[in-house]
């Protein structure tokens, strides 16, 4: 009744065997009596099988047929999100286009949606979500923002006026390798999935890999750490792709990078306690943005510079973008404050996206009214 998964080959070679419950004790006794050492690889095979079956049934959902029937109130797979993007472009070819800005470590395409009413190289707003893969409410909010822009671009005065003069770039899944890993292997994965020589540990923190105070205090040089900055700045293709895009575009005026959780709106710097020259203006914008956000559901946000509001962090995205001259550089930490943390219930996706959108509009409108 023993089911060999790795068949006997001869002395010195290990054997893997699935043991039915009634045979467990007799087999253990037999092995021990004969001095054969063993270890348990899987305690309950049935549990794994059951789990896999539920996962696969869930995965067999139909891919969405239109962005109007897409379920915004649930978490989606990478394939579903990439399909959504293509649908959005197909349904709105005059407003939305998809750009591939690079490839991830595992060779997945990095896509950015461009929302534009025309012109050439207009001043632009950049929004990214999902740079840390376990922060699932951010990718889900990114999907919602994309649809929101399409829905509102004519009838919402604020958004219409923004798009009259500016383009919006939205990267929904900024770290697709990490995202897939959170769905298949480890829901709490944060980093990229790159391997760098000299370590068994995988991944670099993409929010410590930018060329701003790179390698300084506020990041780790240990490849096994969640805040590992990587071997050098822009070592991660996911980061390099954005750096190249921003430099080539040359006309980005506002840059917003979205994370969760903690309910914070942050501006630079993280790597140093020296205040940015535009500190007062950024602080004022933050205050207005947070007021707008809270007005919807009463969600409380704190705001301030990264280093004074959370902790010192070096090599961060918006420190780099600010130093590139993108004055309106902000980071959000979305819901919640720890009750569910990364595992935010899906029913909070839409309310989170809705309130965050109000704050984003404040930032975009300010940029529009203060183009530089």
């Amino acid at each position, binding site marked *: 009744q023993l089911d060999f998964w790795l068949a006997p080959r001869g002395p010195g070679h290990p054997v893997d065997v699935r043991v039915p419950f009634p045979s467990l004790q007799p087999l253990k006794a037999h092995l021990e009596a004969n001095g054969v050492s063993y270890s348990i690889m899987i305690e309950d095979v049935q549990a794994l099988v059951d789990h896999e079956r539920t996962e696969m049934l869930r995965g067999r959902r139909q891919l969405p047929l239109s962005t109007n029937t897409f379920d915004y109130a649930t978490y989606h797979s990478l394939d579903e999100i990439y399909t959504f993007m293509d649908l959005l472009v197909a349904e709105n070819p005059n407003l939305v286009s998809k750009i591939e800005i690079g490839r991830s470590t595992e060779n997945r395409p990095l896509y950015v949606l461009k929302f534009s009413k025309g012109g050439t190289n207009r001043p632009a707003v950049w929004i990214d979500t999902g740079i840390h893969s376990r922060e699932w409410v951010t990718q889900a909010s990114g999907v919602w923002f994309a649809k929101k822009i399409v829905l509102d671009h004519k009838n919402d005065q604020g958004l219409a006026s923004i798009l009259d003069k500016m383009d919006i770039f939205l990267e929904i899944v900024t770290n697709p390798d990490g995202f897939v890993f959170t769905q298949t292997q480890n829901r709490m994965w944060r980093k990229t999935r790159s391997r760098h020589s000299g370590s068994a540990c995988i991944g670099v923190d993409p929010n410590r890999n930018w060329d701003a105070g790179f390698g300084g205090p506020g990041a780790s040089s240990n490849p096994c750490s969640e805040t590992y900055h990587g071997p050098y700045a822009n070592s991660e293709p996911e980061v390099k792709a954005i750096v190249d895009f921003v430099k080539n575009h040359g006309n980005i005026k506002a840059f917003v990078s979205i994370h969760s959780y903690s309910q914070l709106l942050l501006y630079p710097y993280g790597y140093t306690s020296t205040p940015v020259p535009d500190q007062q203006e950024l602080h004022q914008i933050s205050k207005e943005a947070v007021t707008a956000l809270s007005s919807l559901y009463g969600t409380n946000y704190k705001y301030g510079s990264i280093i004074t509001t959370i902790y010192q962090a070096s090599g961060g995205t918006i420190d780099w973008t600010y130093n590139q001259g993108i004055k309106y550089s902000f980071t959000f930490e979305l819901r919640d404050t720890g*009750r569910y943390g990364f595992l935010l219930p899906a029913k909070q996706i839409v309310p989170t996206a809705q309130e965050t959108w109000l704050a984003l509009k404040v930032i975009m409108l300010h940029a529009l009214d203060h183009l530089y």
Partner: protein
Amino acid sequence: MDKEDIDDVGHKYHLELVLEDILDKDSTVNCTAEVLYHLPNKNLPPDVQFTIEGELKNTDEADSMFYNRIKSLEKELVAEDIPDSHGNVAPEMEPVRLLAWVASGYVIWQNSTENTKFQLAQIKHVKQVKRSDEYLEFDYRILLHEMVSQEIIPWQMTVLWHPHHGVQVTQDSRQPKHASE
């Protein structure tokens, strides 16, 4: 909040806070507390003194319901991934989650410094341990999220509970991370 530096001892914080019942946001109670973080070389958990002004809500009915339900289970309760990846918690598991939250508060307290900020991220596994006495016992494997390092730290804790005797963590230990993580 006030901070006081005490030579050779550590940093003492004076706090005024409002406690909010997570099950009833309108139910609040004022609290004052003193937290003393010892010098790092002492390796001691912070000392906490507190005063609550007023009374916490009575939870006898909910406590009895949960207690009787678990006591009357034929097979020991076993569950995994609470919440699941999508943030779902089965209604009957909600008290199990709340119990873990309270118990993890003790573990967090015992392992906190001025440079840590812990949250309970998930219950990976919970198993009830049947007892012959009146207490309920649960063996939890939880994940703690530490904000500053951003690490996810597996932790095991053995939790005792009885409606009249409160929560006790009788044993807890930090667990090694798996190779695939």
